[in-house]
């Protein structure tokens, strides 16, 4: 039961950024779904015997390699012009082309922010979340937050000040999670 729960949590945590990464790499929606699915399946196959060794790179780094390979496979299958960086199958497994590296990092950053916001929503008062989300995630000026929700600008400031450390802590926890 614990394994099922953990697996469901893993799936929920990683499927979306894998899909988003594959889309940004240039795949269609259905191909991107396949990449996400295949990557997760690959992890599932390897996990029973997997021993995490930080010296060999992070779990996410390993995930990145698998996902990148899957993206490359899909380009080959569709006979599309393969990005040059993926053309050489003899690239070392741990090496990821710089442009895909950037895409991957951006997607993970975005994913962590979303996850952190979701966790924040569970942790604090909905109104505080609403104010913080509007000001910090959507970059509304304080006056707009004040006008839209009928609170003084000072109150917006206080709420932001209280919530920001909680949010940053959640973000830090996500970044440090090995899996």
């Amino acid at each position: 039961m614990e394994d099922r729960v953990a697996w469901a949590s893993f799936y929920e945590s990683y499927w979306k950024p894998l899909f988003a990464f594959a889309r940004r790499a240039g795949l269609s929606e259905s191909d991107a779904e396949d990449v996400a699915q295949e990557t997760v399946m690959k992890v599932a196959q390897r996990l029973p015997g997997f021993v995490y060794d930080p010296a060999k790179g992070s779990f996410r780094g390993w995930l990145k390699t698998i996902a990148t390979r899957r993206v490359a496979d899909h380009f080959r299958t569709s006979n599309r012009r393969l990005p040059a960086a993926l053309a050489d199958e003899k690239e070392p497994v741990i090496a990821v082309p710089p442009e895909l590296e950037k895409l991957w990092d951006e997607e993970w950053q975005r994913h962590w922010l979303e996850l952190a916001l979701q966790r924040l929503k569970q942790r604090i008062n909905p109104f505080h979340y609403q104010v913080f989300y509007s000001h910090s995630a959507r970059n509304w000026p304080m006056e707009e937050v004040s006008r839209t929700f009928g609170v003084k600008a000072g109150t917006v400031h206080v709420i932001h000040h209280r919530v920001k450390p909680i949010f940053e802590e959640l973000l830090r926890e996500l970044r440090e999670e090995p899996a």
Partner: protein
Amino acid sequence: MRMNSIPAIPLLPEHELFKPIGRGSYGEVWLARTITGQWRAVKIVRRENFEEAKSYDREFAGVSHYSGIAMQQPGLVQMYLVGRNDAEGFFYYTMELADDVGSGQDVEPTSYSPRTLASRLHTIGTLTVGQALLLGEQLALALDHLHSHGLLHRDVKPANIVYVQGQAKLADPGLMSLVDMTASNGTVSTVGTHGYVPMDGAGTPAADLFAVGKVLHEALSGKDCMSFPEFDAPNEALRAINPVLHKACAPDAASRYQRASDLAQDLTTVRTGQATLHIDEDGKISYAMTSRRKWMIAGSTAAVATLIAGTVWWQRNDRRAKAQRAAVKLPDPATKPPAVIATNPPPVKTEPEAISFLPIMPGYARLGAAHAMDAAKKDTAIRYEWGQWEPEWTAPGKYKDTAGMAMGHNHTVCLCADGTVAAHGFNSDKQCDVPKGLDSVVAVAAGELHSLAMTATGRVVPWGFEVVIDAGKWITDAVAIAAGGLHNLVLRANGQIVTWGRADSGQCTLPNFDGRRARAIAAGRYHSVALMADDTVVCWGAGSSETITGMHLRQSMVPKKLENVQAIAAGDFHTVALCMDGSLVIWGDPAAEQCKIPVGLGLVEAIAVGANHNVVLQRDGQLRIWGDNNFKQLATPGAVQAQLMSSSANLLQICAGGNRSAALMKG
């Protein structure tokens, strides 16, 4: 629960089934037609989809119970027929068919797809705050009706809110009686859609209201139901409704709305500007009533629970009454006349007598509209308004001189001396945003959330809430206009009446005039009035029978043998007729002050009627106002009284609407 992937077409008596059009809880919904050619939605509920027979029987009992009560509440999809076929293992029920997503009420079976809130949001993105407030009220009142009869909906979501003749209705209830839910100690399976169900489950009235809050947030934000309470774009209009959403969707069950009538009431107070809800920095919600009021909510043992929007009065015997908000019937777009249009047959083709139409705007004193226009052009007309005023309403600007006024429920529309229009007051639905370039206007009218103007060429221009359509393309001979709660009347030069808008109380169902023509029109909040060319009066809409319930307070029951009428006016629940001899005849709510003739009332020259009060100008120059005074709408300003004492000719026009009164004076 198992669902057949390919349902076999069931055989139903007197119905032809065309195709499945949806899947609901426990069964599928079919497009069907009766042997008389009426389109219906038919839901087939199959026994095989239930784990236990008693669950199947419970569902049937709930549906049977629902069919009887749904007809009393316009916000619920009506059921026509419930049937059962135990041999084949299903029961079924026939319902109103939702409008087609593209063609409205023109049903083409091969392409039919039901119009729902989900499809509407997919097309338009979001609703305005005004639209969301009204939708929320309708849903809350519909749920209040269900809950008061011991039923829950359990699956409120945009896909289950359908539009029937333009009106939003709750559909596909996963019904279960409250008694059953309690007795089962929550062990029965609960339906509901993830995202619309609170953490504590779907089996309570508060859970239905939680879902309404989620729906409204989704409709306002354009985001999915899991994103509450996020908004991506600032919008000051959200300020009023945001606290209501937070209360409906509070994580703590005890902090949420427990009764649908409370949710409806809060949405109404916000929509009508009667009160302001606030959230403090800790997320607690409080109320700032904009003026001292008492709410009257009437419960009826026959249990149609309704709510009076923005009006309070105490009956002499302390009987409480509640007026039901109902949805607007949206007409088709302007490429053709609206679907709900009603026009009485044209008069018999004999040599027509000239019709003596009334002045095109009511309330003018004896010297008439021309006198008022003259004063306005000479810069000597002064407008006085008193009664309800809320600080968040749009204040009057520096208008060019006012030649005439119309007062809606919470806003005022002014006809200016140069034929342009200006408006001020509550502006939730842009009812004060006069269309650019509008000129050559000769009359204005104001409803609850919308405004009308009539031009010198006989065109009618509406703006504001969704009753708006461009009537200019097909009405070119208007001689008078009237705006009711959410419906409109237009009088044409040949004496025909044209009407469209909210139709739930029959206010747009023209009666048989027997070929007679009208010479004046008036629109109350839920009823309509015509003064005929033979000086008799016809009423239709709410209050057409002796039975008093909800908003039906006999306001359409014209006294027998009423004749020689020279002017008419209509409020929320009463109607006033001014006879040629200067006497008044009033009918409607029998216990209300405004339906009584005040002692010592002299002969009357002009009448104006608000929601629950009357303003009359006597022939001797005195102004008399009586009825509801909760907003000091009876307190004539000293300046007006002084000018009247100086000369009665100083009063150009009287006006009333909602909880306000006005006088246009010659300075």
